[in-house]
């Protein structure tokens, strides 16, 4: 199975080449190397995928090398190829390739692109570890690896403290989640004696789990979900994702929209059989997901930074996926993951083009009317928006409605309501974004003050672009990938046409074998298989479409030709709401006051008292004592080498004589 | 080791005899070379050279010149410089002669011969580490030069000696390295075994490892401080090098040491690269039966070795009168930057080839 190894190693090789050998080489070279690596990887992935389909999508594991083999604990570097990981690897490498191509154009003003592409390739490698790993340890390696790469890339413009801080924040918040994940792993090994997915699957599929194990599974799933909340930016650990927009836009597209943030969903789907066994956890998951979806959506309503809007929309979409998992509709979650990867990457890249066109201006209120400047971008962006707001027959429609439907039957009207409202908000802010950016008349006189993430960077531009202030369409190397992604966003929905609309859900069929509801939990989940009246399903579908249309209509009315005057009145009339929303519910402030500050104080105390006074005190004390003693006796020292040697000899002879006498 | 009395006596006596013969033979080298060193350049420069001295009224092409020179050398007045380190001043010539003679003892001058039912090797001592022995002893030759220069309390002498010793040390390394491939090829440190291995032309060292021969040749010249490497006695720069302050017998001793070591190295070269006492195309050891009286083969073999050595001696003289002197840094560069790496490469390459042959 050489293709698998090629797919796994090509990004690493690319990273190594860029990072170690080609540091001095011109940008184009490093770009080509990175893209080449990705293309090779993607080609290999396709062949692996087809091969997998050829033999019926049966899970197959491939051993790279033995890794941890300590006592009973056994975690080899083993990779699994089955329907789920096959899909994920296609997403990762495919979209990764497109974004790599795009990144070349986006980063062409950078001086140290080799660094960028090194990190990017490395990220893809780690993501593949995460996706392909056959046991929790390998997955954890990838898990941490992508975390690292995301940290590096968020802080890519580390000359600006904000970016560095954002990277730090992402890293630390993820740490909290990772601790949960680690504990999950520990518990898994503690109770099942293995961390291998396939073995776990067999073990649980065999049934016959005593109460202890069931209870354990509850905790395990909970811990793992904590990890997922960290990585997939759920409440309460979502705060890092909006700040992560400090990184270059391709990074936001690849890592913080398409791939990494979906790791949590992937992990839960991978272990669905365990989650099925823990209804309590599932409820928590569902609620958290729904809450996140709504919460983030409401915040996104009033953001002015184009990337921030997209960021919060990502969070809320992730909320949808988690909600799907929570109600046991893992395939729906993965389907939405898939579609979302397409259209969110598309929108981020589109936003990136806009930002480039606006000379790194990110404030939507300074944009507008870009349609005539950059038609291609406008077109693809429009497709993206239609997809995400769930306009039939674009991709978003099918996946989102799948989720909403499952939420209804699984979680009841309340959950569905939350989801629907969130969907409405989504349509609103997305259309708002579209209008503010592309319609109305151009509000941005060239580029004003730069209060965006990379001020330093922007200043660099200042004289690069002082010649032409007009926004301009980007080159084909940048809109090419966009077009492809747009086609996908429009098209992939048809993979999952629900039965009620006459289609038979190919995607669901495809993923069925991955999903396994253990005997023990059958009766709790039978609603998933149960049949419902089509009218109900159709009705809900129509309802959500109506909501969507209403919301977007409102948005068009309000923002169609620039922000309407009435908005100001509203802002003034109910300031509390507006401020709360625009300040993201003061979550960051809350965390800072209640978590960050105490930690800092403790650290301060540990340093200033424990370390300096006690530890250093002890060490220095010893030194001082030695100095004192030495000083008091050093006058005996003659400094003559011979004298030392003589004393040595005398002692030696004494020892010798003792030896002989005995 | 248990030798019986008569066996022991035979070995002992034979050793003594061999050594005395060898010593006498080596003592004949300088006078001969004296003449050669004066006649050959004469021929090379289209002049007569010393051809007058003779016995009574027979000229004998000036053969007696050698005798005359020797006598002159020996009967000169002896002057010991002021402030010299007496002991070492007198000891130095010994130090320079002694190694040359020691090395000469290890070289096989002919095939073994049978005396009273005992095999007597035709080398004074038969060592299974003949090579190492030779290197070890030749490395002692440095002391004669160094001490001479230092003891005779003269700056030219000291500089000359320092130059000479540095040069000799530097070129011992290529000398040794050049011979390692030979050891690898013939698989023995025993010179006699090596000679016996070189039965035909194509098995001669020069054909099996030409680079070694090249290196050895150059190092040989440097070891004996001969032109083009005779910087230690560069008349132009340092009056006469380390033996500036020496005259009469002691000078003769240095002279002896130099020529003997030249001769010994020539013998070594012919032993290692030109088949020693082997005569191409037939086995000298078979001669005994052919002619029917023992020792003929040994004599013939000895003769062939002598011929080859003579060729090298002539080469010395030829080169001396043909090639100009190196500059000191050039000398050191050649030694350290070219010959040693080349030697290393040579060793490795030979080893690889041998391994390939071995494992094939």
């Amino acid at each position: 199975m050489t293709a698998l190894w090629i797919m796994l190693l090509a990004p690493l090789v690319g990273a190594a080449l860029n990072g170690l050998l080609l540091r001095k080489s011109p940008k184009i070279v490093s770009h080509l190397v990175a893209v080449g690596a990705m293309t090779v990887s993607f080609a290999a992935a396709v062949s692996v995928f087809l091969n997998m389909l050829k033999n019926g999508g049966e899970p197959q594991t491939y051993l790279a090398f033995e890794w941890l083999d300590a006592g009973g604990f056994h975690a080899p570097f083993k990779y699994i190829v089955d329907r789920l990981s096959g899909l994920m690897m296609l997403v990762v490498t495919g979209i990764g390739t497109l974004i790599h191509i795009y990144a070349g154009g986006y980063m062409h003003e950078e001086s140290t692109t080799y660094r960028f592409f090194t990190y990017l390739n490395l990220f893809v490698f780690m993501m593949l570890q995460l996706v392909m790993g056959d046991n929790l340890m390998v997955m954890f390696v990838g898990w941490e690896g992508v975390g690292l790469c995301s940290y590096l890339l968020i802080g890519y413009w580390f000359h600006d403290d904000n970016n560095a801080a954002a990277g730090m924040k992402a890293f630390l918040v993820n740490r909290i989640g990772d601790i949960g994940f680690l504990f999950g792993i520990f518990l898994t090994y503690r109770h099942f004696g293995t961390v291998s997915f396939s073995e776990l699957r067999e073990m649980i599929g065999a049934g016959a789990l005593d109460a202890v194990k069931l209870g354990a599974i509850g905790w395990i799933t909970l811990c793992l979900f904590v990890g997922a909340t960290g990585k997939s930016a759920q409440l309460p650990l979502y705060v890092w994702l909006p700040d992560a927009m400090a990184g270059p836009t391709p990074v936001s597209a690849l890592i913080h929209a398409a791939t990494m943030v979906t790791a949590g969903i992937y992990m839960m789907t991978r272990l669905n059989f365990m989650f099925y066994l823990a209804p309590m956890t599932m409820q928590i998951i569902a609620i958290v997901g729904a809450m996140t979806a709504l919460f983030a959506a409401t915040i996104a309503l009033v953001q002015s930074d184009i990337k921030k809007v997209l960021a919060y929309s990502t969070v809320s979409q992730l909320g949808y996926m988690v909600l799907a998992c929570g109600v046991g509709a893992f395939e729906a979650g993965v389907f939405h993951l898939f579609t979302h990867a397409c259209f969110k990457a598309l929108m981020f890249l589109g936003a990136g083009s806009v930002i480039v066109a606006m000379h790194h201006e990110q404030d939507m209120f300074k944009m507008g009317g870009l349609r005539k400047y950059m038609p291609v971008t406008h077109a693809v962006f429009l497709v993206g928006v239609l997809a995400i707001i769930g306009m039939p027959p674009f991709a978003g429609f099918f996946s989102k409605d799948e989720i909403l439907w499952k939420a209804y039957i699984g979680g009841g009207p309340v959950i569905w309501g939350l989801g629907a409202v969130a969907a409405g908000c989504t349509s609103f802010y997305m259309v708002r974004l579209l209008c503010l950016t592309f319609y109305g008349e151009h509000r941005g006189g060239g580029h004003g003050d730069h209060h965006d993430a990379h001020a330093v960077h922007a200043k660099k531009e200042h004289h690069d672009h002082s010649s032409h202030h007009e926004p301009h369409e980007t080159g084909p190397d940048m809109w090419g990938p966009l077009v492809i992604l747009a086609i996908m966003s429009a098209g992939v929905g048809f993979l999952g046409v629900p039965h009620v609309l006459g289609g038979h859900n190919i995607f669901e069929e495809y993923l069925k074998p991955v999903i396994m509801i253990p005997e023990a939990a059958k009766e709790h989940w039978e609603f998933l298989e149960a049949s419902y009246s089509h009218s109900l399903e159709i009705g809900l579908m129509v309802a959500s479409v109506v909501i969507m249309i209403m919301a977007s209509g409102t948005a068009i009315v309000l923002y169609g030709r620039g922000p309407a005057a009435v908005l100001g009145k509203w802002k003034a009339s109910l300031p509390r709401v507006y401020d709360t929303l625009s300040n993201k519910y003061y979550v960051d402030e809350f965390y800072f006051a209640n978590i960050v500050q105490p930690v800092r104080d403790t650290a301060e105390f540990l340093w200033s008292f424990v370390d300096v006074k006690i530890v250093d005190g002890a060490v220095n004390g010893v030194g001082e004592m030695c100095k004192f003693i030495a000083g008091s006796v050093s006058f005996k020292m003659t400094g003559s080498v011979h004298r030392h040697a003589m004393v040595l000899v005398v002692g030696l002879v004494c020892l010798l004589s003792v030896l002989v006498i005995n | 080791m248990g030798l019986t009395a008569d066996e022991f006596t035979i070995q002992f006596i034979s050793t003594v005899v061999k050594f005395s013969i060898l010593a006498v033979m080596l003592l004949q080298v300088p006078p001969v070379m004296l003449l050669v060193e004066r006649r050959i350049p004469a021929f090379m420069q289209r002049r007569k050279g010393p051809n007058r001295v003779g016995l009574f009224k027979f000229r004998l092409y000036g053969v007696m010149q050698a005798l005359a020179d020797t006598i002159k050398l020996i009967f000169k007045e002896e002057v010991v410089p002021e402030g010299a380190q007496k002991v070492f001043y007198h000891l130095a010539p010994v130090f320079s002669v002694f190694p040359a003679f020691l090395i000469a003892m290890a070289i096989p001058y002919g095939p073994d011969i049978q005396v009273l039912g005992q095999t007597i090797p035709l080398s004074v001592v038969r060592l299974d580490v003949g090579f190492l022995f030779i290197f070890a002893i030749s490395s002692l030759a440095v002391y004669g030069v160094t001490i001479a220069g230092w003891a005779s309390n003269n700056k030219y002498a000291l500089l000359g000696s320092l130059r000479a010793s540095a040069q000799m040390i530097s070129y011992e390394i290529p000398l040794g390295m050049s011979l390692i491939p030979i050891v690898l090829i013939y698989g023995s440190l025993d010179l006699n075994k090596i000679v016996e291995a070189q039965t035909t032309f194509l098995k001669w060292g020069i054909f099996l490892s030409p680079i070694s021969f090249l290196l050895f040749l150059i190092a040989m010249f440097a070891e004996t401080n001969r032109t083009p490497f005779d910087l230690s006695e560069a008349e132009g720069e340092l009056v006469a090098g380390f033996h500036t302050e020496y005259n009469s017998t002691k000078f003769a001793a240095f002279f002896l040491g130099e020529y003997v070591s030249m001769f010994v190295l020539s013998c070594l070269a012919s032993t290692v690269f030109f088949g020693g006492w082997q005569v191409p195309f037939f086995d000298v050891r078979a001669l005994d039966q052919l002619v029917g009286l023992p020792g003929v083969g040994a004599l013939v073999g000895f003769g062939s070795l002598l011929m080859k050595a003579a060729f090298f001696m002539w080469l010395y003289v030829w080169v001396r009168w043909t090639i100009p002197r190196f500059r000191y840094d050039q000398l050191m560069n050649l030694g350290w930057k070219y010959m040693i790496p080349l030697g290393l490469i040579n060793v490795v390459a030979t080893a690889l080839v041998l391994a390939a042959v071995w494992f094939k």
Partner: protein
Amino acid sequence: MVPVEFYFMLACVIFTLGLFGALFRRNIIMVLMSIELMLNAVNLVFVAAGRSIGNLDGQIMVLFVITVAACEAAVGLAMVIALFRKYGTVNTDILRLLRG
């Protein structure tokens, strides 16, 4: 055959002489030479013992000792030169930097 004890006694004598040199000569180079002498005494013991009990490890050890001795001499002499450059002497009566 010569009994091995003789060799040991010879080694003892050499060793002690070297020790005297190392202890009572004030010239660092002399000290180094004396150390070489001591090392050689040890070598002699190695060879003789190896010979008498009939195995080769003794000689191998000698080879390693010689290697180490060579390195020691090289580095030591380099240090002597450095010392001489710095203080203009190699007499240990003068070189007493550690005097309290």
